[in-house]
């Protein structure tokens, strides 16, 4: 397998598995034929078209759900990032540890991820159920998983509010177990770790649920 073929195969993973089973070999042949001699990377134009084509086939419900999961993952990733820095008095007044010394880029990423994770659940939930209408009754495990994943997701968001942020007066009262001392590195509580793990599970579940085509796939055979 040439490096070009390997990279093209990797790009074709933008398409869902059910689509790749039918079309990947044919598309790969066309990609290789359309490439120039000695070319070892797909062109930027081809790469962009494959990614947008893959997203189109997966559907906007999938994209919206994955964006939500990605936003949640950024948020939980931030929980681990802040363990590398000491807890300061400035953080106490903000209620978010590490925030006062975070680089601008990190703050922007966290604000965007927070905004997305708050804004997307309802649209993604509605979009998912609209799409579920196209499924037959025999797809009930996926429907149940979809509903279950969302109940779990909302429960996590509620818990994240409790576990994710330290109380503003945490050091003053010597308070809950997860309060770090001023100047010591922040810690990630078991609850926060649970949330991180749950986000990954939730993402996998949503991916599995939405991996089937919204409508019966048209086959070329």
């Amino acid at each position, binding site marked *: 397998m040439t490096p070009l073929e390997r990279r093209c195969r990797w790009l074709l993973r933008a398409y869902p598995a059910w689509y790749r089973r039918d079309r990947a070999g044919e598309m790969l042949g*066309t990609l290789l034929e359309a490439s120039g001699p000695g070319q070892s990377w797909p062109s930027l*134009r*081809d790469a962009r078209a494959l990614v947008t*084509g893959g997203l189109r086939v997966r559907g906007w419900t999938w994209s919206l759900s994955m964006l939500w999961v990605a936003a949640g993952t950024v948020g939980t990733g931030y929980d681990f990032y802040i363990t590398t820095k000491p807890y300061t008095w400035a953080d106490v007044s903000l209620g978010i540890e590490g925030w006062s010394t975070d680089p601008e880029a990190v703050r922007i990423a966290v604000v965007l991820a927070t905004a997305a994770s708050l804004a997307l659940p309802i649209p993604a939930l509605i979009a998912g159920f609209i799409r579920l209408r196209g499924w037959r009754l025999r797809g009930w495990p996926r429907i149940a998983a979809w509903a279950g994943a969302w109940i779990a997701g909302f429960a996590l968001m509620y818990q994240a509010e409790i576990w994710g942020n330290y109380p503003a007066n945490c050091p003053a009262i010597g308070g809950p177990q997860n309060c770090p001392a001023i100047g010591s590195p922040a810690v990630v509580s078991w609850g926060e770790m649970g949330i991180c793990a749950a986000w990954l599970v939730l993402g996998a579940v949503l991916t599995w649920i939405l991996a089937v085509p919204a409508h019966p796939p048209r086959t070329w*055979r």
Partner: protein
Amino acid sequence: MREPTYFVLASLLDGPLHGYAIIQRTEELSGGRVRLATGTLYTALDRLAAEGHVELVREEIVNGRVRRSYGLTPHGAGALRAEAARMAEAARLVTDRGRDLKAGGPTRKTSPA
């Protein structure tokens, strides 16, 4: 109908073609203006097949990979002809007034002051 779709359908007028041949023929017919990326071509083929404009005609194995050839359906040929007629009609609006254009614009009657 968008220009790439028009040229994809037009490329199949002379008979069925496989993916890469459609890309080549489309570029040739459009004078190099429409250069389809592979992903764009298959998105277009999926849509055109769903609309009944193209169909799978032949399937063969080349270098261990499936190669499919697509052909124009009667419905697709009709849609292509209708689009060509519409564009010709639109072009006629301008070409029929060629003399005006050559003279530097339409002649206007000016009222005496």
